[in-house]
């Protein structure tokens, strides 16, 4: 993993303001160390994690969790974990789906919204089912474009891992 930049307080503020502009709330990124890798990907790691080890460990595969990706249009495509963090306090750009659509969404299909909460067309939206944020999508005319990564979609898998 090649770390491009560890973000300072001002840079974290900039990320937070992009999130606030889109979702009407902050993500709480100041509670973490935030850094960026190639392709403008944003990552977070716990504050007391010995983060500087990335300089020591040559075969470092990954640090912390993936928060999202800063796009060229100054919007952030959130990961599911990023969406869950933001979704706790989000006020806008939320689409609510029913049970059937929620199941389809987590399987990777585009779905229809039951309700829109200040959601702009062609924009990133948080997808909510009940009280859970189940991911992000892009609101298109008549549907929500699914952005759940393939590896995360629910498909037939072996139930036990160990």
């Amino acid at each position, binding site marked *: 993993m090649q770390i491009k930049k560890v973000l300072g307080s001002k840079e974290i503020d900039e990320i937070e303001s992009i999130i606030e502009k889109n979702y009407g709330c902050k993500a709480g990124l100041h509670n*973490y160390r935030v850094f960026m890798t190639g392709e403008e990907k944003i990552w*977070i*790691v*716990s504050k*007391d*994690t*010995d983060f500087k*080890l*990335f300089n*020591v*460990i*040559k*075969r*470092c*595969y*990954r*640090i*912390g*969790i*993936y928060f999202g990706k800063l796009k060229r249009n100054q919007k952030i495509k959130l*990961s*599911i*974990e990023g969406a*869950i963090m933001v979704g706790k306090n989000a006020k806008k750009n939320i689409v609510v789906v029913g049970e059937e659509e*929620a*199941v389809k969404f*987590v399987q990777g299909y585009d779905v229809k919204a039951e309700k829109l909460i200040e959601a702009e067309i062609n924009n990133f939206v948080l997808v909510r*089912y009940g009280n*859970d944020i*189940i991911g992000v999508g892009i609101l298109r005319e008549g549907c929500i474009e699914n952005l759940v990564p393939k*590896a*995360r979609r*629910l498909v*037939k*898998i*072996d*139930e*036990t*891992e*160990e």
Partner: protein
Amino acid sequence: MFRERIARMIPDANAFFTAEQEWKSIRVNTLKISKDALLKRLQERYEVKEMPWYENGLFIKGENIAKSIEFYLGYYHIQEAASMLPPLAMDVGKKDFIIDMCAAPGSKTTQLAMMMGNCGTIIANDVSISRIRALTHNIQKAGAANCIITNYDGRYLDKVGLKADKILLDAPCTASGKIIKNKKMIEKWKYWRVKKMARMQKALIRAAAACLEKDGIIVYSTCSVEPEENEEVIDYAIEKCGLEIEKIELKGIKTRHGLKEWNGKKFEWYDKVVRIWPQDNLTEGFFICRLRKC
């Protein structure tokens, strides 16, 4: 040969070969949801009961537990009930620096992250890139933000220069304790595999000892019942790696001591290590030992 060996180890060998598992087990991910909240949701669709030996463990019966929205969101992790025990034997502290030497697919790593409240540092290491992908996926899904994933051969991890307070060595093994889930392994069992694994486990525990701070703790575990992979590895660690054994006590689960002797070799510390036999709790078999660096 496998049947005869088991009969030499325990008086109830028949029960070992016939035990069947009725319940699946999951671990609540308290980094994302409270146990009560998850329990309430799951009880609407599944038969659920609490696990006597771990407050965040649940037994569950029903279809498609790996296809629920709660699973997708990382609210729970499907994890064998006995495999939740090694992290419990560690006495994890929130500020600890922990190395999980053979971490993939990450069940115990994410359990440790949860027990540490996402604080401290976990080096989650694995030698296999394909298994690291599963580890990465599970750490992300768990929301475990205190993990650094590394890709080293654990046998040479001491060359990296890390020093840990605690190390979890859940070593690769022949997995003969998984018989409760896979009866076919009886036919596939080979003694040369036991010996091969034992060689690797000794190399791993030697490297683990070298990566440990003074007074640091190693928890060594396997899901094998073979003495060559368990008691003999611990014997090697005590004799050659400057480690001393500490007694483990686990509550709420039926455990047995280690073997007193095997093939003429005596293990005087046999009552300090823990063996979980599949027939006792209807879980996989496990061996767990706690060692301290002198």
